[in-house]
């Protein structure tokens, strides 16, 4: 405790300290920049440059990168830059939406299990164990197949499937945190004030786990993106995403004509995004809990 009584000094939230520590981590700062630039590029550039991912030009099939087509064209003569950027939109969106789904489910589920403990916890966490036991690809494919054929390529089943698979880890992490938090005296203090369980969970416990939740959410985004890419690769994913593009590119690779740009751009972007997100996640973890640093 330094000066306990400095009047009118701006108060810092504990999370503000974590952000400051993150900003001091150079690698994390660069990675965060890459993620931001990538996001802005995918969402703004196609509109700004009037890029068109769908119009076919049979005369310009399989053009290598040039001034007119930065990333070349694909087998139908479509501008590949437009396709890669639009694909990035879906991949990033899937990452974000599925992660939010799993944050909401995981945090509530974990907080309830951890807070009530005992038999409630036992039953709830055994269910999580059971879900873990099912191979997740099997689960995802099953959910995807439950939606009708016409919904194929529609984002909703993909979000649902990925969110349902990924919340398990979040629930475990949160539950572990809440198990220790509920023993803290401020939880008792809130209950002594007459606060009910719901209020204690939402107002006192959840804010205390948000740090660790942010970390795991950041690490979940790349996991979800790669899962979606894999689904796309299997032909079960979205219509236009990085995974879908890579899958198509692999299809046309042959020893005589190696259209390298078809493979290099989407997989390069994908790899760069995933790497950056992982570095940011690691940086966040160190920032939220400095003691955990190796």
């Amino acid at each position, binding site marked *: *405790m330094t000066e*306990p*009584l400095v*009047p*009118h*000094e701006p*108060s*810092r*939230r*504990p*999370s503000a300290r974590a952000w400051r520590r993150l900003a001091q981590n150079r690698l994390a700062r660069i990675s965060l920049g890459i993620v931001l630039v990538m996001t802005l590029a995918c969402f703004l550039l196609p509109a700004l440059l009037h890029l068109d991912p769908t119009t076919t030009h049979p005369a310009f099939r399989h053009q290598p990168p040039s001034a007119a087509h930065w990333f070349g064209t694909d087998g139908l003569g479509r501008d590949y830059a437009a396709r890669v950027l639009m694909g990035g939109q879906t991949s990033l969106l899937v990452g974000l939406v599925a992660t939010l789904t799993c944050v909401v489910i995981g945090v509530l589920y974990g907080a309830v299990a951890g807070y009530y*403990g*005992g038999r409630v916890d036992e039953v709830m966490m055994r269910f999580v164990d059971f879900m873990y036991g099912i191979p997740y690809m099997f689960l995802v494919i099953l959910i995807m197949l439950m939606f009708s054929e016409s919904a194929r390529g529609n984002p909703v089943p993909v979000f649902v499937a990925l969110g349902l698979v990924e919340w398990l880890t979040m629930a475990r992490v949160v539950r572990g945190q809440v198990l220790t938090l509920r023993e*803290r*005296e*401020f939880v*008792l*203090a*809130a*209950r*002594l*004030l*007459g*606060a*009910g369980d719901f*209020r204690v969970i939402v*107002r*006192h416990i959840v*804010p*205390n786990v*948000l740090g660790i939740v942010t970390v795991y959410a950041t690490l979940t985004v790349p996991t979800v993106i790669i899962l979606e890419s894999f689904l796309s690769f299997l032909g079960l994913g979205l219509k236009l995403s990085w995974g879908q593009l890579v899958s198509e590119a692999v299809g046309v690779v042959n020893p005589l004509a190696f259209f390298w740009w078809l493979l290099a751009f989407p997989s390069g972007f994908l790899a760069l995004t995933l790497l950056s997100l992982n570095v940011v996640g690691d940086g966040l973890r160190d920032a939220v809990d400095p003691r955990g640093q190796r």
Partner: protein
Amino acid sequence: MTSPTPPEARAPQPLLAVQGLTTEFRSDEGSVRAVDSVSFTLERGEMLGIVGESGSGKSATSLTIMGLLPPRGHVVAGSVALRGTELLTLPEAERRRVRGRRIAMIFQDPMTALNPYLRVGEQLVEGPLLHLGVSEREAERRAVALLDRVRIPDAQARLRSYPHELSGGMRQRVMIAMALLCDPELLIADEPTTALDVTVQAQILELLAELQREKNLAILLITHDLGVVATTCERVLVMYAGRVVELAPARELFARPLHPYTAALMKSLPSLDAAPAGRLEAIPGLPPQLDRGPFTACSFAPRCAHVHDACKVADPPLTEAGSGRLRRCVLPLSRP
């Protein structure tokens, strides 16, 4: 309040009446009786001290009164009545309206008792918003007034602080303000000064005494420190192994302890009046394992300096010892 309050004119009910309260905790080796047949009453404007060493059942008693025992604990017998309303059988929803509103509690470690992620102001207004149905602005106004009253400088600005920006003494003041915002009738203070240094301790105790007079508050002061109760409480309850061993007005207790345990506790205290004459006396041995009885001997017998045969054959009952005093000992009144 919707809870039925019987007409007080007919039979004046004490503010808090605890009768034969017995609380057990399940453990791996079976049940442990943490509180055993504890009885006392408390009136408005009175401060009652509960003294005992760690594990003597002080905190278990207060948590039982608040109805917030951990899942392993349960009340086996007894009653806790607030102005005649039995609290132990009250449905949880009504219980919550008592908690924080009519009985408030502060405890030992103000470092951990405040939520580190919420501003002091956000935590202070929680009680009034829950219980008094006031607007957020009104709740905030009351919070500032009370922070002022507990002598927190620049109260308005402190609402925006986080707990980690306050010192230990300040945090305990915030806790006190938080507890008193809904004007409770009873305040349970569980070791309120243990985590603080001595000068701050004195300030907090003084503050509690002032507030007690001002608001005609009943305070249950739980501590292991006889020095703390000596200066503040009117009556003192001494607990050992979950049971009351002595109850007496503070002055008389300190002048003439009637239970060997109380006497031994006093001898283990350093005194400023007497010149330090060698080492302080410690009580030999450890408190017993808490079990459920039936007791075939006095639970303090193994550590008692005055133990004799009668102590080992039967558990002494709590008996009247004159001038409103109670004690659990078979020795002649003149002995300890």
